[in-house]
């Protein structure tokens, strides 16, 4: 077996994930990345073991149906590379709906992004005829509640959980387009407790009128 070369550089990538990618599940997005990195010919470091994979780590996968404006991932390279050169090389190989926005060097021994992620900011646009006052009232009522039982599917089973502690803040953000209302959310995104924007909308009675859900920021 060949020796595993010691990794030499960690790059932290901020990227956007839009358009057709919202219909692609996270595992498939990961593979799309791996293939783009391979095409770009950047000196990827691989994990050791029988099935070596590139050392590419995402802070948090986007749920199906959502887009991301400033997602974060780390990649480890075997040889150091100028962040700007890395960004140009990889962007040239990405499908149009995945764009690297910023690449910077990070300490090689950084903790896993996934482990230190705390919260995330979301914007949800809903197509509804409800007015601002009604929506504000619903948001206030939600935040005033102590407990909010919700259901999720886990391994094919319905599981009940409390949604309330996963929601840190809700805000009415106005009317981005005629007939659409925008709601801002701050949700917990810790490994053991992750709030889902669609679950919040369902709890607000807006589950049927969702038009667009976007994650705008990850908070570490």
């Amino acid at each position, binding site marked *: *077996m*060949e020796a595993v070369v010691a990794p030499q550089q960690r790059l932290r990538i901020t990227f956007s994930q839009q*358009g*057709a*990618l919202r*219909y*692609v*599940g996270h*595992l*498939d*997005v990961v*593979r*799309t990345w*791996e*293939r*783009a*990195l*391979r*095409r770009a010919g950047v000196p990827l470091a*691989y994990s050791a073991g*029988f*099935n*070596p994979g590139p050392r590419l780590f995402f802070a948090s996968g986007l749920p*199906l*149906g959502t887009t991301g404006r400033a997602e974060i991932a780390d990649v480890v390279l075997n040889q150091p590379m100028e962040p700007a050169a890395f960004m140009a090389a990889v962007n040239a*190989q990405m*499908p*149009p*709906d995945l764009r690297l926005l910023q690449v910077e060097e990070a300490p090689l021994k950084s903790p896993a992004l996934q482990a230190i992620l705390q919260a995330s900011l979301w914007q949800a646009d809903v197509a509804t005829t409800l007015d601002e006052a009604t929506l504000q009232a619903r948001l206030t009522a939600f935040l005033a509640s102590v407990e909010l039982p919700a259901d999720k599917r886990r391994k094919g089973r319905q599981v009940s959980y409390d949604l309330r502690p996963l929601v840190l803040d809700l805000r009415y953000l106005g009317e981005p387009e005629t007939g659409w209302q925008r709601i801002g959310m701050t949700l917990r995104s810790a490994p053991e407790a992750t709030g889902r924007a669609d679950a919040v909308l369902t709890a607000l009675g807006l589950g049927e009128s969702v038009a667009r859900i976007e994650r705008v920021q990850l908070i570490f």
Partner: protein
Amino acid sequence: MMNHPTPADISGFLERTLLRVQKPARYTGGELNCVVKDWDAVQQRIALAFPDIYDLGMSNLGLAILYDQINQRPDLLAERVYAPWLDMEAALRAADMPLFSLETRHPLTDFDVIGFSLPYEQLYTNVLNMLDLAGLPLRAAERSAQHPLVIAGGSACYNPEPMHAFFDALVIGEGEEVIFEILATYEAWKQEVGTHANHEPEIQDAVTPFPLSNHRLSLWQRLARLRGVYVPHLYAPSYHPDGTLAQIEPLDEAAPPVVTKRILPTMPPPVTRFIVPFIDTVHNRAAIEIQRGCTRGCRFCQAGMIFRPVRERPVQEVLEAVDAIIAATGYEEIGLLSLSSSDYSGVAELVEAIMTRHGDKKLSVGLPSLRIESFSVDLMEQLARGRRRSGFTFAPEAATDRLRDVINKPIATDDLLRTAEEVFSRGWTSIKLYFMIGHPTQSLEDVEAIADLAQAVMKIGRRHIGGKAKVRVGVSTLVPKPHTPFQWVPVEDVDTLNAHIRHLQERIRGKGFDFSWNDPRDTLVEAFLTRGDRRLAVVIERAWQLGAKFDAWQDNRNFAAWQQAFAEAGLDPDWYARRGRLLDEVLPWEHINTGVSKEFLTLDYMNSLKGAVVDDCREHCYSCGILGLFRHDRRNVPDDAWGCPALGRGKARQPVDIRPVPLYVNSEMAPELAAHYGPRVPQRSARREGSD
């Protein structure tokens, strides 16, 4: 059906629908390397259709080749369309939306030509479903001049009769050249005749049974003049009182009495800009054909007969394609495709060169269809290089030496066990063995031997790696295919097959064993469709109306629909599937010429009944008919480019027999005859060393 939605209408529909269906990325397009051309800037638009879902269709190499070649032409565009899964079909129907292409989201009816790939028969009902979802009349004769030309190609077209009613034309053989002839013919016809709905045909023929207003007759006549193109509406069958065929006759002077397949004398350039799907597909990898055709002559194998002659792609061309594919796709896996990888003459050189160039890039290389010999283990060991060695797959197809002689896949059980020994001793943990049941002359002993062999292989595994050893056994049922030496043989009856499977289930169980099998009823559907005649068109259409679709999907099988459709048509599925055919019977595919002559198939069928094994035909040409038919092509390619002997004076070449003279005859099957031949010897490799 909605009158005529625009691509924008279809995009709006998708926006509303995609999050409500499974795997929405099946329907979005936009993958890396997909070709989106300006719709109005080209002269002709071709939809390439695969009649199953995206996940399967994306792995079809035939369509990938045509997509690549058509899109290289500036005046043409090709786009993809797959069968929508049940949830998307329901959404399309509920919204009155037609089936659309992935690249530009145009309804299928906007295309000039719709070309279906038909690699196997269980896709037939899906073709009807897709035509219906497109808003097209199912039957070619009911489509008007402004409807698209609907054609098909692929292995299943070698018996075009069951689906004859639904296509304007079917391509027999390799499509890479003839597709452009079809497109040019269609374009010329459109220019001359026009496609307006009020056009009246200029040709009327008293003999043809079409409505006189049929707009497509003159198009069909032009297409029928192309070599390798079968235009079913220009032929009519007649039947004997007992239901067997009397003959299939051309109705028009444009239609040749026999349609001969097309081949390319050398393999087409390999596809390198594969579309890279976002989602996981069945074979999520790029593929390079290293060789077309096979010289081994297994008697059950249709591919081995219809894809003759053997043509090899030069090693250098494969290596260049691997480099180009990695650069263009980033794929982590490449499949090197052929019917028998071990027989590719440059295989060792190729594997070594690929691993030298790409071993450190974590490329995994698939090399399917390896022969059961230690050389295969060497090759796989080189390809594995530090990776986990999980599975090794072999297909002995039958479990006794005798039965393997009958099917002309003469591997000795001893050699198989020796190879298993190599596999387990070199670090692999599992062996998968494929068998078929229902071979002619099969006895209970042969079925029992499958279990014995599995146990023997397990014993070897246990000896080397203890409890980690796994033996997986896959059993399918022989479906005697058209154009093979077994084409006359009946399918075994369901009760017997089920009894065999139950028995094997009981014997191949316990720690480390895995046993899987095909439902014999699925076999029956494949069997009557592949062996059927024109009368099955009604049955297929009716079964589809009754809900049959996705017949290749176990969860989706609708056998009741097929039974009812047969009953309503007054036909019997067993008459098609389970009736042994007499050697002088006119077969429904008799007017389709694969180049392998009926005489050769007959003699080889007789050989099977004596357990007479014929050698790999690279060692010894048996005059199957290919070389005579394609002698002009043979002369135009280098001597070593084909498996067939080189032609011309002074060429070094293998001996040629007019009749297939066996290598040896099985002593159990025909003892008195066997005495006249030598002892049991392996095909090809060992023979090369012997005195010949």
